[in-house]
């Protein structure tokens, strides 16, 4: 499969070096994940042209934005992009409508613009048009900033920790909008964050950055379950499964969902049968048994094959198992791993104690 985004950058600030070579999908949400200082924001700014890597090659859907070997560097204002900053960064001297119109007035009249009314409704800001930015809440400001970027119908939407400056409540208010964006608008999104929660909730494709390098890049489930990245060892390590609602067991307040290779029971989900969901399963909420447990209170017991084993520096082992078509991470103590004599290729049963629904 050809990847519509190719980004290669090398940049040296003395105390910080960025060196990445990435092929990214041309649709869905690609999350650039890393801790502060990992280079994720620098990478995003290089893609936007706000920073210039002296050595760089950037191809967006076949348009070359930078090719240092041929001395090509398109300035930011000539790139078809939308950019959402960490703080909304609205123009304080303009109303919401003025901010939304700013970019629209400047793009060639023949280019296709987005359906602004649709975006306003999607983001729930159509009643705010006459206000100035200082009359908006933090969450409203960030939604206007997203609408302002989307209004230009860009080739790619770049988002730099758009939720980082918001409190938990405001985050929960905006996350669904961003999930809906990528379902309803066909624009690839590059999304920078250091929050594993946002990764689980939004990512289709995940790039893990550390010290200016890409440790891993691939589809979300696959990349989350890689044992060679520090994420798998993290206490918050989790697998994310795409599932579909197949049945409501109203008597038990349960909802049954299907995934590639089986069925899970979840606490009741208020959505119709057929609705796609993302289910997050923390590695610490899963245990392993060698034989099918006959008497257990745990509803979700699934057959699995061990595909990977790793020890952390403490007393913990990370086990990766394949359940049907999906990978699942399991955290157990190293002692348990030795007592059960777990080996790659073994058939086991996983018991899932808890799940959470992400959308």
């Amino acid at each position, binding site marked *: 499969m050809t990847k519509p985004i190719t980004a290669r950058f090398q940049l040296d600030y003395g105390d910080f070096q960025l060196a990445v070579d990435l092929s990214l999908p041309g649709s869905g949400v690609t999350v650039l994940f890393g801790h502060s200082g990992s280079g994720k924001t620098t990478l995003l700014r290089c893609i936007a042209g706000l920073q210039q890597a002296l050595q760089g090659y950037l191809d967006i859907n076949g348009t070359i934005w930078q090719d240092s070997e041929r001395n090509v560097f398109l*300035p*930011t*204002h000539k790139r078809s992009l*939308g950019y959402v900053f960490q703080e909304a960064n609205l*123009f304080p001297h303009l109303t919401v409508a003025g901010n939304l119109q700013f970019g629209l007035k400047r793009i060639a009249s023949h280019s296709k613009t987005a359906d602004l009314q649709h975006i306003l409704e999607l983001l729930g800001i159509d009643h705010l048009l006459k206000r100035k930015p200082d009359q908006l809440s933090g969450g409203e400001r960030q939604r206007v900033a997203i609408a*302002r970027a989307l209004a230009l119908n860009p080739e790619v939407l770049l988002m730099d920790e758009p939720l980082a400056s918001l409190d938990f409540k405001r985050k929960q208010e905006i996350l669904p909008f961003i999930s809906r964006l990528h379902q309803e608008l066909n624009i690839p999104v590059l999304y920078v964050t250091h929050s594993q929660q946002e990764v689980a909730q939004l990512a289709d494709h995940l790039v893990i950055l550390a010290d200016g390098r890409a440790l891993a890049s691939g589809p979300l489930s696959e990349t989350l379950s890689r044992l060679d990245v520090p994420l798998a060892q993290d206490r918050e390590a989790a697998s994310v499964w795409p599932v579909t609602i197949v049945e409501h067991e109203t008597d038990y307040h349960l909802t049954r969902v299907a995934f590639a290779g089986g069925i899970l029971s979840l606490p009741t989900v208020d959505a119709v049968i057929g609705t796609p969901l993302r289910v997050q399963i923390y590695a610490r909420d899963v245990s392993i048994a060698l034989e099918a447990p006959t008497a257990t209170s745990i509803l979700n017991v699934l057959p699995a094959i061990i595909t990977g084993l790793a020890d952390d520096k403490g007393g913990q082992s990370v086990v990766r198992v394949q359940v049907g078509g999906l990978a699942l991470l399991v955290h157990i103590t190293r002692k348990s791993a030795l007592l059960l004599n777990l080996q790659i290729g073994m058939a086991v049963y996983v018991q899932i104690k808890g799940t959470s629904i992400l959308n």
Partner: protein
Amino acid sequence: MLNPADLDTLLLTFKVASIATTLMLLLGTPLAWWLARTRSAWKGLINAVVALPLVLPPTVLGFYLLVLMGPAGAIGQFTSWLGLGTLPFTFAGLVVASVLYSIPFVVQPLQAAFTTIGELPLEAAATLRASPLDTFFSVVMPLAKPGFLTAAILGFTHTVGEFGVVLMIGGNIPNRTRVVSVQIYNHVEAMEYSSAHSLAGILLVFSFAVLLVLYTVLKTQPVAHQLK
């Protein structure tokens, strides 16, 4: 109360100040923009040169201008070569001297305003397809409006109040270089205290009213604060 000669000096003063302020804004804006954004090693030197008229006695500035713009000076020879004659004791010379004398009062508020705006609005504008020049007019100018008003008002009033520089390079020629501050001095020399009172009173009321507008309506920081 005002005789025609006094009225002429008032008109001349406002004419010099208006033209000088316009020139200072035209020259000072790009200069302040450069100073606010450059990382050049020259920045410190240029800042020092721009601030020099703040601390220099006006007679010293006037003296050097007189020498430089005179027939033997570099500027004087250049203006003569252009066929313009020499600048001392002319209206044009007075405007040039005023610009040099008052420019820090224009550049420094603008520089402070541009620095306050920072990079973020400029980056937002770039991601919304605005070229750098477009961004300056559509984002920087509106955001720096208080800075521009402060710069214009301070530049204008400071030019109205100049005395030492005018004496050195302009002399005291009616309708050409005789401004209000010089005329007040003339009246006092001639013991015409009531005429001096009228003109001095006008300047006092004018200056106070302007500063009042600056600090109440525009809520500008005091000058000493601005100049830091």
